[in-house]
C-alpha cells in the first residue's frame, strides 16, 4: 500500500509522527493553515487542486488531513484515486482522537478556546487575511490609527466583546511537544484574555488509523473515483454523492 496525505499544516507535528510510524510509505503534502480563513469555497478549491495534482495510478488512496472545517471540504471530488477523510467537524476532534470525545467535551465546556502546537506555531503570517477582513486580533492602537479615535475605540469594543463569551483556553497536549514552550505560550494567552487555563491530553490514534489504512465506516468517509464528499450536518459529518 502507498498513500498520499494532503493535510493542513496545523497538524504538522502529529501527522509527521503518525506517518513516521506507518507500516507503508505515505507521501505528505501540507497546505497552509491560512486556508481556514479564506472561506469555504476558496479553501475547497485549493484542496481540490492538490487532489488533482496527484498522479494517477500511484496511490491506493488520497488521505485528507482535515475536518469538515466550516465546509472547507464540502464538494471535494475524487478523480482517479479514492479520497479518505475522517468524519470530523474540525481538527480539534482529530487531536482529541474521536468525534464523540470532542462533542462531549464541547457540550460540557461551552466557551472553550483550543490550542495545540500547530495552532501556536503555524500560519501566523497568513492570519493577516482574517485580520483585515474581519478585523479581529487588531490592537486598539491599530484600529484607532486606521479608523480614527472614536470609531477605532468603538470597533475595538465590538470586536473584542467575544472574549467575554469565552471562559477558558485549553491546550491539547499530544506528547510531541519538545519542551514547555507551547504550554507556557498557551497559558500566557489565557491570562492575557482573562480566561481560565487548562490542558487536555490529545489522542493520535484516529490519525494513526487513517495512515495505517484502517478505515471503519463509522470513522472515515471514502469517496470512490467520480464521487464527492458532501457535508451532511449530522453525526456522520459527510455523505458521499455521485
Amino acid at each position: 500500500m502507498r498513500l498520499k496525505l494532503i493535510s493542513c499544516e496545523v497538524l504538522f507535528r502529529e501527522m509527521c509522527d503518525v506517518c513516521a510510524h506507518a507500516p507503508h510509505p505515505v507521501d505528505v503534502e501540507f497546505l497552509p493553515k491560512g486556508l481556514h480563513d479564506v472561506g469555504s469555497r476558496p479553501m475547497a478549491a485549493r484542496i481540490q487542486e492538490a487532489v488533482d495534482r496527484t498522479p494517477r495510478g500511484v496511490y491506493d488512496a488520497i488521505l485528507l488531513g482535515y475536518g469538515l472545517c466550516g465546509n472547507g471540504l464540502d464538494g471535494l471530488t475524487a478523480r482517479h484515486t479514492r479520497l479518505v477523510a475522517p468524519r470530523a467537524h474540525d481538527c480539534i476532534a482529530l487531536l482529541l482522537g474521536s468525534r464523540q470525545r470532542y462533542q462531549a467535551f464541547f457540550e460540557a465546556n461551552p466557551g472553550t478556546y483550543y490550542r495545540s502546537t500547530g495552532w501556536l506555531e503555524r500560519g501566523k503570517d497568513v492570519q493577516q487575511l482574517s485580520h483585515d477582513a474581519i478585523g479581529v486580533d487588531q490592537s486598539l492602537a491599530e484600529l484607532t490609527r486606521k479608523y480614527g479615535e472614536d470609531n477605532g475605540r468603538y470597533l475595538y469594543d465590538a470586536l473584542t466583546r467575544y472574549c467575554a463569551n469565552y471562559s477558558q483556553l485549553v491546550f491539547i497536549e499530544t506528547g510531541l511537544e519538545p519542551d514547555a514552550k507551547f504550554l507556557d505560550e498557551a497559558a500566557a494567552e489565557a491570562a492575557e484574555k482573562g480566561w481560565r487555563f487548562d490542558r487536555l491530553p490529545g489522542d493520535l490514534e484516529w490519525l494513526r488509523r487513517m495512515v495505517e489504512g484502517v478505515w471503519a465506516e463509522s470513522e472515515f468517509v471514502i469517496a470512490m473515483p467520480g464521487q464527492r464528499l458532501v457535508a451532511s450536518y449530522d453525526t456522520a459529518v459527510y455523505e458521499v454523492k455521485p
Partner: protein
Amino acid sequence: MADTDELQEAVIKGDAKAAAAATQAALAAGVTPLSIVTEHLVPAMDEVGRRFECQDYFVPEMLLSARAMKASMEIVRPLLAASGAEPIGRVVIGTVQGDLHDIGKNLVASMLEGGGFEVIDLGVNVEPRRFIEAASSRNAGLVALSALLTVTMPAMKTTIDAFAAAGLREKVKIMVGGAPVTEQYANTIGADGYSESAAGAVALARRLAAA
C-alpha cells in the same frame, strides 16, 4: 436634497456624528421621519452591503456604517413611535445553543434595525426554549438564527423543531445564516429563508415580513 444626501454619505462613510447632525438637519428641513428611514438609511445600508459584497468594504467598515445608521435611528425612532408608525416587523435574533460567535449576528441585528425592524437580540448560546419564549412574549413574526460552526448547525434544526413542537411554527418565519450555513441546509431543516450576507438578510426579512 443636499442634507439627506449628506446623511447617506455619513452612513456609508461610517461617521456617526455626521449622521446624527444630518438627520437633525433633514428633520428641520421638513423631511418626515419615515422617509429618513426608507429613502435614506435603507438605500445607504444597501450601498454598504453592495460594497461589502464586492469586497470593497470588510466587517469593520460594515460595523461603522451600522453604528452611524443607529445614531440616526435613535433620533428618528421616538418620532416614528409618536406618529404611530409601526416597525416593519419584530425579529428575535440569536446565535444557537452551543455556539458563542456573535460578530456576524450583531451585524445582522444592526442591519435589521436600520432596515426598520424592531430587534430583540438574545445574544449567544441561546437555547430553543428562549427563542420560543421571546417570540411569543414579544409577539415577533420573525426569528433569525445564526451559527458559525458546522458542529452547532444542528441546533438550528433543533430550534425549528422546538417551535413546531410548541405549536408555534406557523406563527413565525424563521431565517438562518452564518458562514457554514447554506441555502440547501436551510431548506433541509425547514427554515423559511437563508441569506449569505448581512445586507441580504435585511432584504430577506422584508420579504418574509411581507409574506
